[in-house]
């Protein structure tokens, strides 16, 4: 078994119009910039994929990564908890112009819905958002005198995730707080495609240190020296553009 993919173009080749795509990262940490840019590259060359539903904690920053995806008009709907950033102009303009739909989900509920999707739990109850506008229309229930909101699982056709080390079986480790949504999105997507700083042979990761077991991963592609969204933005980069 060898889940390694030859290049970024191959890694994103299966994503089609109208699909749902979970994209890892909290702000810039864990954002799979190279996978996203490969997808934008395909869109600019072919007009596809478009009308995507994207799941991410945020809505992009500046003009690279997810923000660039939104800027180029590939995203029909965003499911996220915090569509703000240091430079949120791309999402803000499209949202206020009605060109992108937003499903706002509390951050912990977003994480748990994605985990539930991966774990075969179609619905669960959480105290989060009870009595607020974000619970409007959702079933509620009382357990031991306290009120809870019923939330549904969240799955996706694809996940694009950034990890640190991956073996050919798809076992992954992450780097510090870049872990965030990666392990959950790998579980919840039909196909999880992961860019890693290095691919190693099976046995190259301590079995105790595996964070995402390979069963949750369908493809790994090596990006040896991945870009950091924060660094790109501080350099004023845009994609496509000279600086990225």
């Amino acid at each position: 078994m060898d889940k390694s993919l030859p290049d970024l173009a191959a890694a994103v080749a299966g994503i089609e119009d109208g699909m749902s795509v979970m994209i890892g990262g909290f702000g810039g940490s864990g954002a799979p910039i190279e996978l996203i840019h490969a997808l934008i590259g395909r869109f600019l060359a072919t007009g596809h994929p478009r009308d995507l539903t994207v799941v991410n904690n945020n809505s992009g920053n500046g003009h690279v990564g997810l923000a660039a995806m939104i800027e180029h008009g590939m995203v029909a709907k965003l499911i996220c908890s915090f569509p703000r950033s240091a430079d949120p102009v791309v999402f803000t303009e499209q949202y206020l112009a009605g060109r992108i739909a937003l499903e706002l989900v509390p951050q912990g509920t977003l994480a748990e819905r994605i985990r539930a999707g991966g774990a075969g739990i179609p619905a669960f109850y959480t105290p989060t958002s009870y009595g607020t506008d974000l619970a409007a229309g959702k079933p509620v229930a009382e357990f031991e005198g306290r009120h809870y909101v019923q939330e549904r699982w969240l799955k996706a056709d694809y996940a694009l995730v950034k990890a640190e080390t991956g073996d050919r079986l798809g076992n992954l480790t992450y780097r510090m707080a870049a872990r965030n949504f990666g392990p959950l999105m790998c579980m919840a997507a039909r196909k999880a495609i992961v860019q890693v700083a290095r691919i190693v042979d099976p046995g190259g990761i301590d079995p105790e240190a595996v964070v995402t077991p390979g069963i949750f991963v369908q493809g790994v592609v090596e990006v040896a020296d991945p870009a950091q969204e924060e660094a790109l933005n501080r350099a004023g980069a845009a994609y496509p553009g000279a600086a990225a």
Partner: protein
Amino acid sequence: MTSPLTTNQIAWRAAQDIEDGAYVNLGIGLPVRVAQFQPPGREAIFHSENGILGFGAAPAPGDEDWDLINASKKSVTLKPGTAFFDHADSFAMVRGGHLDVAILGAYQVAENGDLANWSTGPRGVPAVGGAMDLVHGARRVAVITDHLTRKGEPKLVHRCTFPLTGLGCINRVYTSHAVVDIEDGRFVLREKLADLSLEALQAITGARLHIPGPVGELTAPEV
């Protein structure tokens, strides 16, 4: 008449249908034997619900590490690429549909796909383990079993009379006498022992066998 398959031969037959690279959970007891009969050139990755993926065979006696056991509580070994995880993640793999194949034992399998394999009734100590999770956990859920109980009663039945493990969950049954798929609430015969007549097979099967296509010969080497 051709002899019915031995339990090892049933396990061998089931192993032939496991694709290269498949993620597979083998139930406690007989199903565990399937692992030893993987065809050359194919490598499945075995999941054990206590929290291991990609483990290897049993160690030599005396080399056991009792922190490294499978769901049957038998000692196994590490292989390159093994991963450990907790029980919640392990059953996320199961319930979340990430396994390709689960192979279980059975007291009874019904033509509607119901399985009974955890309890023979209210007497004694009930125990279920992961069986009720596994039947909902794999893209393909198969049973391996003798065709008849020790008392000579059919294990393939119209409706289960023992307490159910899961409803409509079984896709295929490998027995000592036949390979039977369950499709649209019917038993569909795919293979049978060469010189066992259809009538004789039907006579030891508790519900009607349907034959919409060719019926192959069920054979297995001495194993």
